[in-house]
């Protein structure tokens, strides 16, 4: 299964970005093989508004069926849920650590946004 991770770099040892909408990259990792692709998100890093919505769309179009990030706001949550993407929170330091934690079933799956939306 394909899992998206918000990341500040483009390898498995990159830092897991605590922010979803304004993460620099998404690593789309195949949980069976650990192979991954990188989706650049710098366009949303600098977006005036709606970064969470666009980022969620990136994750969905990359074919991910789960997301691991530090936090997810209400609009991103709405878009991801509509597309059936499961959302997990992690405070792991790197994407690799978060992936391992996900595999062990240690990550918490959320049913609601865990942070407030914010403006411009």
């Amino acid at each position: 299964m394909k899992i998206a991770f918000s990341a500040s770099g483009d390898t498995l040892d990159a830092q897991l970005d605590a922010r979803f909408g304004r993460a620099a990259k998404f690593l789309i990792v195949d949980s069976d093989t650990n192979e991954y692709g990188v989706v650049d998100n710098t366009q949303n890093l600098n977006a005036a508004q709606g970064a969470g919505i666009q980022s969620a769309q990136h994750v969905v179009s990359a074919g991910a069926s789960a997301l691991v990030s530090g936090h997810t706001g209400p609009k991103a949550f709405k878009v991801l849920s509509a597309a059936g993407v499961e959302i997990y929170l992690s405070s792991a330091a790197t994407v690799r650590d978060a992936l391992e934690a996900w595999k062990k079933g240690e990550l918490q799956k959320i049913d609601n946004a865990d942070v407030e939306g914010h403006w411009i």
Partner: protein
Amino acid sequence: MKIAVASGKGGTGKTTVSVSLALSVSDPLVLLDCDVEEPNSSIFLGDTTGRQTETVTVPVPVLDESKCTACGECGRFCEFNAIVCVGTSVMVFPELCHSCGGCIRVCPHGALHEEESPVGELSFCTISAGTGSNRALILVEGVLTIGKAMSPPVIRAVKRKGAALAGTLSSENARDVLTIMDSPPGTSCPMTTTVSDADVVILVTEPTPFGLHDLDLAVQTVRKMKLPFGVVINRSDSGDDRVREYCKKESIPLLLEIPEDRRIAEGYSSGIPLVQAAPEYREQFARLARDAAYLAGVVNDGRKHA
């Protein structure tokens, strides 16, 4: 003529200057409180009974799911991520919508239409008490609904209402109407929306490092917008001389200095306008209006010089 009273920094005295100007001139006058996130001019104008209110709305897209094929054209068009197509569903986020109507035009299936959504309220009334003359003073005030993020639509509605009411005053009095716009602080969309059609901008500042820093931002903004402007220094004997030096260096006219005065502060804290707490300022504010008109290139007949 339209005078906008703006500042970079908040709390420098925009409302104090706006209200005092309004109470010191004899022209028929419309005062627009464009600071729709926290309007406060009315506090200083006494009796505002007879206020009429109107709801301010903006058009936002509404989806007809039976016509939507989830082709995604709307989401690709939207600059503001206010409409998004994920899988087979289209989601609208009205709070992000700038009401451009683009999604509706690009939809190949006619699945979107506009509906009006309330974002705020404006109110207006004629003020008679405390104006020191029997000429008409109309106040128009906007209030952005709590939880809404975009104030420019409410500010534009206040300005449209002000222009309409100024039209009625002008025909009654056969004299040119002075419009004073009390701007929101800062230099972003709410401020630029307010000052955009001003004939002249009065920038109110205080002689502190923060005051100077934000004054400089405001100066850069009005210069870029090619608007004539001058500066008023409030609480001018506090702080230091850097604002004066800055104005001198930049050749910016210093229109008025208002020193610290306990009467003004006490009046302010109980809703009494500066020119009532310290009546000797009436003449200075009347002169401020004349100087601002001079900067705008407007003479008494209201026509602009070439």
